[in-house]
């Protein structure tokens, strides 16, 4: 027992007090000893992972099967109707212009906001990655929009966009109803989303930038490479895996967008800015059509699945 405690203390010392007792290796516990090796690997971790995996199975995986089951039914909550109708909901979906419009909006929202976030995030990351006074402070400042709850941020921007009393019209000297037309409303939502999520992109990219070896840059400097050339030939290629990971996270997140657009536009004017999640929500909880609403949910799920598969392939190719 005593040796174990000594060992622990030595470890804690080295970790928290900077006393590097560890390099001396007081005990021979290296993994070369087959008996010790066995001690470590004999213990089964099944009991440790079972609770969480069963919770995930019950609350996350089971509902996915259930939603598919629901999508094959005509189910109206208020009238207790539930009849099996096979793929009828899916056939109806193909001719539903409101669905196609929502799909178009979701794709537009995802494409434009992720592209803008990446460009903006990359610029800010490169800018903040150099050494300057107040670097820590600036990194904290960049985190602020990320910390603001989406609902709060949407309400905040709704007030900024306000036609009569909003500060945006005052600054621009205009009199525009920002949420009044489909085009302006969806782009206003994109602008808000870019404001809110660029920090996340910036942080991941800064973390990626820090892993790039510094000697590469000094070598390039010696060779007389310009800063744009260095960025294109060194920074960008080496950052690619991190950029792809950022793209995965952000694309999947943007594709399921709900609160940002729902609060800001409510899907309006006249349901033209609905995203897939908003349309599905309205069918489910306003029209109480649980069958068709679930069909829309399944479609969102499948789209997200397809996007993930596409990205994971891209990522494994880039790492190779």
């Amino acid at each position, binding site marked *: *027992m005593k*040796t*174990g405690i000594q*060992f*622990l203390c030595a470890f804690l010392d080295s*970790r928290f007090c900077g006393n590097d007792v560890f390099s001396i290796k007081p005990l021979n*516990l290296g*993994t070369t000893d087959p008996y*010790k090796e066995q*001690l*470590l690997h004999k*213990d089964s*971790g099944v*009991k*440790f*992972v079972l609770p*969480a995996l069963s*919770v*995930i199975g019950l*609350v*996350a995986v089971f*509902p*996915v099967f259930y*939603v598919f089951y629901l999508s094959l039914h005509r189910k109206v909550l208020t009238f207790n109707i539930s009849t099996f109708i096979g793929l009828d909901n899916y056939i109806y979906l193909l001719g539903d212009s409101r669905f196609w419009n929502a799909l178009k909006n979701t794709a537009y929202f995802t494409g434009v906001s992720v592209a803008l976030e990446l460009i903006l995030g990359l610029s800010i990351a490169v800018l*903040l990655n150099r050494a*300057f006074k107040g670097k820590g402070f600036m990194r*904290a*400042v*960049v*985190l*602020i929009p*990320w*910390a*603001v*709850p*989406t*609902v*709060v941020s949407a*309400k905040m*921007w709704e*007030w900024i966009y306000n036609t*009569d*009393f909003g500060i945006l019209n005052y600054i621009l000297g205009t009199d525009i109803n920002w949420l009044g037309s489909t085009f302006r409303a969806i782009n206003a939502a994109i602008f808000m989303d870019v*404001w809110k999520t660029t920090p996340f992109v910036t*942080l*991941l990219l800064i*973390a*990626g930038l820090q892993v790039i070896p510094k000697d590469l840059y000094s070598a390039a400097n010696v060779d007389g490479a310009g800063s744009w050339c260095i960025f294109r030939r060194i920074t960008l290629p080496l950052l690619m895996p991190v950029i792809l990971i950022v793209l995965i996270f952000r694309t999947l997140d943007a*594709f*399921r967008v709900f*609160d940002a657009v729902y609060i800001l536009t409510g899907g309006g004017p006249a349901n033209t800015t609905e995203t897939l999640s908003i349309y*599905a*929500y309205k069918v*489910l909880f306003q029209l109480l059509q*649980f069958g068709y609403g679930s069909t829309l*949910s*399944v479609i969102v*799920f499948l789209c*997200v699945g397809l996007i*993930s598969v596409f990205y994971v392939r891209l990522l494994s190719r880039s790492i190779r």
Partner: protein
Amino acid sequence: MKKSGFYLMLTVIFMYCTGPFLWQVITSVKPSSELTKLPPVLPDVISLDHYISVFKGHPFGRIILNSMAVSLISTVLSLALGSLTAFGLAKLNIKGKALIFGFVLSISMFPPIATVSPLYLIIRELGLRDTWWALIITYTTFTLPMSIWILSSFFREVPDELYQAAKVDGCSPFQIFYKIFLPLAGPGIFATAILVFIFSWNEFLYALTFTSTIASRTIPVGIALFPGLHEMPWGDIAAASVIVTLPLIILVLVFQRRIIEGLTSGAVKG
């Protein structure tokens, strides 16, 4: 790039990140009469009327209590289940580890809208509608991938020798977990706790569908459905926003290093 140009750009970034929220703070201290005054600039006098009316005119105290309870309990549960799993995956013998990791990661990509209708029916069936537990169960589950992911990267950094030493001394795997590894992963647990808490504090779609009265309504829903008699009570909304956002911003500013560590773990080291 010249130095002055660099600092100019820093200033622009600073304004971009803080400006919108500062404007909300300014709106919240404007007297009602000045909210609709043109041009919309700084107020002549500072008034705390909106802050008072948020608590007097609305059940905002109760809503904050709901959010606090739901977020804290979800965080504790997610960390308890998540740390056990992360320890098992990082240090113990399990078949198909890669498969479990992939499975857990794929759960984090589930769009909430895909599970909201079945979960609603299940929760209604269990009689949990409009209770804290409806949200706690959901948040705990959907933050588990995040907890498992971040914590396992912290557990993996603790050397195997520690496990072996404790084992030699007769500790059971569970004792090793909570006596040795849990304390050592303290910083990681803290980072995870902040992220899980912020997720639960901000979540909207499930909260909107599973709650119906102030018995369980959380802050995002409360702010989204802020009642107005004739027009939007912008001043009250601004005050409410500041009340619920300021703690988060302070949390983020104080613990930014930890949070960044948590957010980027796994993404860079891979």
